[in-house]
């Protein structure tokens, strides 16, 4: 093999699909048929996964920390809610895109505030923006319904064909389709030169600029894209629950998001999905056992995760899947190799 094609081969190494990934998505799809009574919670996980993927794009790849990602989620949620409530855009898929674009516009506008400064500053500026939006939504209650939220949202069937049902089946497959499409897109983006340049910026912005990368422009671009993703997640939320209330902007939502991503691991896109599953399942299990004190046990799990070490934990958790995959694939393919974070 010539050096050049060798280089090409290795450069594409990460971009190639692994068996493990295919298996992962097949399992997700299978869940839709295996647990017909749990569509709601599964839809919730999918939404959260999409939302987390959005944070992963900026945190895991570009190294921008944010405690206010709920701002975009919220804008998407209210946009979708208002579109449906006032019958402006009736078809859900179309409304989803419009809502995503609304969040994207906000993302673009606020990106200029966020690219300045160090981590802590970013954390607080993003947080501040989300809290301001929450306060605004509260103040303009004639539009947003204030603390009561938007009331009486009724969703039209998807493509005019598939209605949302009470059991959440349509909602689940709809969310899964959206998540998968956006995942494919994100996967493509992160393996492009653009995606790699983000990792370079995260690693060393000084050097990144010194090889000609327009650092700010790249950061603005990814932040805007992430806002779009978060907006879509928010819109999915409204469409599948028919609710949009103030807490879509809440600090807790952004904070939980951070936890989910960190649990799942940053910088390989699957972190959001895995983290969402783990986090929601834990919540569900603990709050069923003890509705009052479930937070204690979640807290304990977080503490243990950190003390044991996430890397090690991932190795344990993925030990069996990796074993199987090695058998099937016959080579050293690994389900997920979480990278270190910021």
């Amino acid at each position, binding site marked *: 093999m010539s050096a050049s094609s060798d280089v090409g081969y290795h450069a594409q190494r990460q971009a190639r699909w692994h068996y493990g990934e295919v298996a992962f998505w097949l399992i997700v799809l299978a869940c839709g048929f295996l647990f017909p*009574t*749990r569509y*709601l*919670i599964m839809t*919730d996980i999918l939404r959260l996964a999409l939302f987390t993927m959005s944070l992963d794009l900026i945190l895991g790849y570009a190294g921008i920390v944010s405690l206010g990602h709920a701002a975009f989620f919220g804008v998407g949620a209210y946009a979708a809610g208002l579109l449906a409530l006032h019958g402006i855009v009736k078809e859900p898929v179309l409304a989803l895109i419009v809502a995503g674009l609304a969040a994207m516009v906000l993302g673009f506008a606020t990106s200029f505030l966020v690219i300045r400064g160090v981590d802590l500053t970013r954390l607080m500026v993003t947080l501040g923006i989300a809290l301001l939006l929450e*306060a605004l939504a*509260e103040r303009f*209650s004639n539009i947003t319904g*204030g*603390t*009561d*939220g938007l*009331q009486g949202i009724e969703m039209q069937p998807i493509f005019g064909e598939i209605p949302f049902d*009470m*059991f*959440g089946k349509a909602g689940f497959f709809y969310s899964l389709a959206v998540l998968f499409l956006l995942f494919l897109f994100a996967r493509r983006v992160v393996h492009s030169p653009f995606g790699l340049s983000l990792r370079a910026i995260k690693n060393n912005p000084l050097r990144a600029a010194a090889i000609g990368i327009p650092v700010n422009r790249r950061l603005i671009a990814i932040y805007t894209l992430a806002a779009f993703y978060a907006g879509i997640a928010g819109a999915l*939320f409204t469409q599948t*629950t*028919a*609710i949009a*209330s103030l*807490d879509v902007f*809440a600090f807790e939502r952004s904070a939980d998001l951070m936890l989910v991503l960190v649990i799942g691991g940053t910088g390989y896109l699957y972190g959001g999905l895995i983290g969402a599953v783990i986090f929601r399942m834990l919540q569900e299990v603990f*709050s069923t056992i003890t*509705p*009052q004190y*479930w*937070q204690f046990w979640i807290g304990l799990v977080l503490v243990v995760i950190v003390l044991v070490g996430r890397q090690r934990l991932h190795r344990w958790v993925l030990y069996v899947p990796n074993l199987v995959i090695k058998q099937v694939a016959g080579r050293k393919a690994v389900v997920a190799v979480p990278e270190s974070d910021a």
Partner: protein
Amino acid sequence: EDTVKVGLILPMTGGQASTGKQIENAIKLYMQQKGDTVAGKKVEIIVKDDAAIPDKTKTAAQELIVNDKVNFIAGFGVTPAALAAAPLATQAKIPEVVMAAGTSIITERSPYIVRTSFTLAQSSTIIGDWAVKNGIKKVATLTSDYAPGNDALNFFKQNFTAGGGEVVEEVKTPLANPDFAPFLQRMKDAKPDAIFVFVPAGQGGNFMKQYAERGLDKAGIKVIGPGDVTDDDLLNNMGDAVLGTVTAHLYSAAHPSQMNKDFVAAYKKAFGNRPGFMAVSGYDGIHLIYEALKKTNGDTNGDKLIEAMKGQKWESPRGPISIDPETRDIVQNIYIRKVEKVDGELYNVEFATFEAVKDLGKTKK
């Protein structure tokens, strides 16, 4: 199938947790006292925490209905939560028993909703009427800026100004508000006869402490309002500044009936503190469920249960109450109370009663 399942969705964590706990406690107490079988069926309570976040409420309700196949959903700490579950109650045709949330519109959102708590219109209008009749002419208002706060404010103003009173200052405070100092200073500067206050249960203590600190009590400015601000849950902890506060409310732990005395004693014994109005709403809520089941003879058909609930009348620790057959909302006495010291403890002592008050929010519309 001989169990009846009640899905109880309450804020058990987060800022509203004490509401959830009072209701859960009261229900436990009721079931201890009355046994867990009614009309030959065993009653099973499934508690879910929604942290007062509506989408969690909705998911919880949906899960309860679809997976646990509950026959009732109940609880609901805040209005958005109660509203979020409404379409599900309608679709699933099962009763939704609202035990805390207090905005008027709730019961209109589904024919399956009944309420055993109160509406803010009930107490706010009454205190408005009472104030004008008792020589309070100028009032400054301080209300939390969210739907219940606005309800309280509007209903109060409506009756108070109709009676010839004047609102000299109107301040809405943010819902999450750590410090009342600047708002109270505004109140003080406006020199009213009284302040009308509505803050969510829990913040009452902060308010009263700072009211006293700023010397508004000494300046002769009284506190009036719906009873949330002097919730029994917290009252004893507020210090002597609350003495003389006049509120209109549905329940006081000092309500002089024998039934209430027993209730308070039992509750204290079981959980160590005094029951508040949330506890009594939960107590009555589970009572209503029991009574409905008795009436249908254990039939769990939702339509039948709702029919059975309409028009129920009973004696509660708070006094005589009933369910309005038309609106499915509660009809109850509203008491005017003043904070006094009884046996070294602070209590809301009732001194006037407005009987069988309906939800004025709806009757007016």
